[in-house]
């Protein structure tokens, strides 16, 4: 697009979003340095889990009264059926592969014959490890 006298407000908004995202992430992750913040997070998580378990219990009680299976019971039933199917599969005689198997004789192609993606790929930032020299292991914190 040709350049304009006016700045693109949507582009500015996109840049602001990226900046805001980065700042909120940094702030939130920085808050995990505080034990109090992490403790509160865990408390919130366990409270929400407790509520969820209570709701599940209540729904389970209702389903029992209504003589209906719960999702968990249906899953257990599905798993039992799967186990039976697996056992039946193991009892069947082994079959020939569904697709023909190619010969295992392939050799590496020369660099000149590499396909386009490899040939056009930018060189990776490769840092081959030294073979004789080993870096000292960094000390773990705490």
């Amino acid at each position, binding site marked *: *697009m*040709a*350049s*304009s*006298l006016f700045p*693109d407000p*949507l582009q500015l908004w*996109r840049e602001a*979003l*990226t900046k*805001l*995202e980065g700042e*909120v*992430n940094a702030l*939130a*992750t920085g808050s*995990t*340095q505080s*034990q109090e913040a*992490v403790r509160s*997070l*865990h408390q919130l*998580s*366990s409270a929400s*889990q407790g509520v969820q378990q209570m709701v599940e219990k209540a729904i389970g009680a209702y389903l029992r009264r209504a003589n209906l299976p719960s999702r968990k019971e249906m899953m*257990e039933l599905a*798993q039992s059926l*799967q186990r039976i199917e*697996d056992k039946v599969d193991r009892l069947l005689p082994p079959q020939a*592969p*569904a*697709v023909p*198997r*190619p*010969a*295992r*004789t*392939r050799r*590496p*192609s020369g660099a000149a014959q*590499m*396909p386009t*993606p*490899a040939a*056009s*790929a*930018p060189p*990776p*930032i*490769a*840092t*081959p*490890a030294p*073979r004789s020299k*080993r*870096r000292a*292991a*960094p000390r*773990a*914190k705490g």
Partner: protein
Amino acid sequence: MAATAAAKGNDKSASTVADPALTERLRLEVERAVQRGLKGFELLGAPPPAVGRTPKSVLLRRGTLELVHYHAMSDEVYRVPLLIVMAVTNKGYILDLAPGQSLVEFLLQRGYDVYMIDWHAPTDAERDLKIEDYVQGFIPECIRRVQQDSGEREVTLLGYCAGGMLSTIYQALHPKGPVKNLVCFTTPIDFSKMEIFRNMSDPKVFDVDKFVDSVGVVPADTVIAGFDALRPSSRLAGQIRLWDNLWNDQFVKGYRMMERWGNETLPVPGGYFRQTTKELMQRNALHEGTLRIGGRLVDLSKITVPLLHVIAQYDHIVPPECAHPLVERVASHDKQEIVLPGGHVSIAAGPNAVKRMWPALDSWLEERST
């Protein structure tokens, strides 16, 4: 250009001259706004995007474990089969999102014989699974099954994230086993560098035993919340960007596939969660060399097979400093670490992966797979 000419050409104020660039921009924005409205409605009723469509056969399925074999796409394959080990928390289709965006498809086209250990949500009966069950049970069993299916004794093991950690622990415990090459993507070793996870699992503020005893299997929501805590505003920002790009079908397709993958994060067996929290997060035992699995010490210097470790430069889950010690610690003579620009997921899936990581992986693997 037109704007510059207008600015130079006369003394009329900008407000009185029609700015072609501005007009074009307004036209484009109106068009996009209309498209957003139309496509937004379409999106509401759209089924989940199809993923993981590369043809495959299931070789083994038991509880949380599934071993699949992808159908070859070339007339001739390399001798050594490749076994991919996914992270316990995520579905393997991140490596097989869609045609053209699938590492699995790329490897098949390049002549590799590809198998994958994928995980399903653990059953209630699997709540006590531990690392021992993965590295002394599931992985060896799948390797045996790959050997039987391929007719080859040697296997290349490729692990992604925690799948890489499990593969590394397996190899440290079975150094004389059938693994010919070990490839790891973004594999954590020094957990002291995962500061946020470490702060959140500090025993002073988090009683992991109490938590695991109450839930049995750790719910997927808790696992998702743990990952979200690393970048709490990114989910909302992502939704806003989706709205902004609703007119762009390619963007929406890619976003929805990744969103589906994120939403299908798996629950984790409580035993595995307890062990990783205590041994890895709190004690950093893998890095300290004190981790015991099945009573045996996990010593990374026992690993002598060729090793490739691909690390993402901007990884917020496994930062590079958390991953570097793998190559430093193993005793392999043939070892390489590659740091590529990208994040934890974009290193393996997405346009940058197609351009950078996949060809690098292929060129490392091809000469070691014969």
